[in-house]
């Protein structure tokens, strides 16, 4: 848990001084892609509920340890609340990706495959339907809610990397990009989506009291990522 929080914090705060991210733009005319298989396991099992500058984090090591416990309990509470209403973030995202990419004129199908050991692109792809030209590999690295600090609003957050890989040309990368929704200090070159102000909560109590809105906020964030990923395949 502590390592997970460190990874999220590092990703969110170190971006400002990092090397600019460079994507691989898609050239549809030259790619010859008609049929796309969308790979499985796009969303991590656990959501995040991260308060960046929490009160506890200002009180040294002991405060940081207490803070880890608070953040962990908050994530568990939100996971339970969303589970109670049967919210499935992965199914929501994958359905939306299939719809959005289909709307760009492709034949699209989901392909079942092994779960990822890490939140990284697949190293190899499972067999897809005959005629598949490319795999669309979508990796959500984190999703959930983010507050900048104490007494600041909680808003949905998500980050994803997307890659289109040729099924015919030995794994050639046809497109790759990174998309962030409500990230702190977004990295130069990364596609940046601003949060929808409709999905904002004052505190944890408000979030737990309205699970439908809580789920809708995450769904909206993931939908926007799916639509943006499809736009990259125009």
């Amino acid at each position, binding site marked *: 848990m502590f390592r997970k929080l460190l990874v999220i914090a590092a990703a969110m705060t170190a971006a400002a001084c990092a090397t600019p991210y460079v994507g691989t733009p898609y050239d549809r005319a030259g790619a010859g892609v008609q049929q796309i298989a969308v790979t499985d396991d796009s969303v991590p099992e656990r959501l995040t509920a991260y308060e960046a500058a929490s009160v506890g*984090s200002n009180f040294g090591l002991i405060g940081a340890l207490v803070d880890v416990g608070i953040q962990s309990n908050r994530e568990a509470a939100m996971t339970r609340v969303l589970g109670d209403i049967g919210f499935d973030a992965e199914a929501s995202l994958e359905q939306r990706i299939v719809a959005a990419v289909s709307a760009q004129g492709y034949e699209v199908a989901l392909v079942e495959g092994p779960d990822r050991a890490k939140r990284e692109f697949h190293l190899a792809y499972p067999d897809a339907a005959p005629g598949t030209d490319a795999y669309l590999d979508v990796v959500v690295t984190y999703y959930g809610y983010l507050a900048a600090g104490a007494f600041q609003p909680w808003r949905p957050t998500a980050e994803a990397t997307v890659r289109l890989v040729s099924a015919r040309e030995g794994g050639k990368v046809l497109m790759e990009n990174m998309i962030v929704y409500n990230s702190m200090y977004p990295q130069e070159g990364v596609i940046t989506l601003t949060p929808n102000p409709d999905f904002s909560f004052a505190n944890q109590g408000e979030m737990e009291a309205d699970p439908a809105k809580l789920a809708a906020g995450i769904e909206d964030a993931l939908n926007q990522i799916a639509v943006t990923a499809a736009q990259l395949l125009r």
Partner: protein
Amino acid sequence: MRIVFTAWAVLAAAAAPLAGCVTAVEVPLPLLAFTGAGCTDTPDLGTAISLTPEKERVSHYVTGAVTADGACLNGEAGATPYVVFALPADHADKTMTVGGVLEATRILSPRVTLLASDGTLTRTFAAEDYLYRGALYSVQFRPREDEAFILVTTDAGRVGQRYDSIVVGTNTTSTYAAGAYVSWTAGTDDAQSRIFSYAGMAQVTVYDSDTDETD
């Protein structure tokens, strides 16, 4: 009461000369109308800003101001100011991100087109191709063999539209108390609003995937 008044008077007197040292920073405002004067039918490619760095680098960026009183083009949708950039000669290994910079109150409403060396149009981009990449509202592409220039004009259809965003971050303040520095980090959650403009700063970011080449 007199002591307080005297203290304020002394402070005001001390502060008065300092006011002359403060330089007001003028924040460029969005340009929402453009008529243009002396516009031409084709861009002046001789004024193109070079995108070739002195030495190959993994990434670098070049900016060009699109201004109300600079070069302008006649177009079907009316006159538009423009700036033109010259692609590096060895552009096969380059990826370009081109668009309008998110300035304090405005964003250049960019329309990016690519031209051949003789000025012939080779490529345009649809509205859906423009995305916010960090602080740049931009398109991203790899130049093709026959492309030599990037022309950035203004998309009048987007001028006047507002881009509202929420920016979250943290802010650390330090104070010295009881012989020690104490720092406190607090979260910030700020609403920002910008308007698309005829004028503004255009930027090209060049990424080079092969900086070791000798040719």
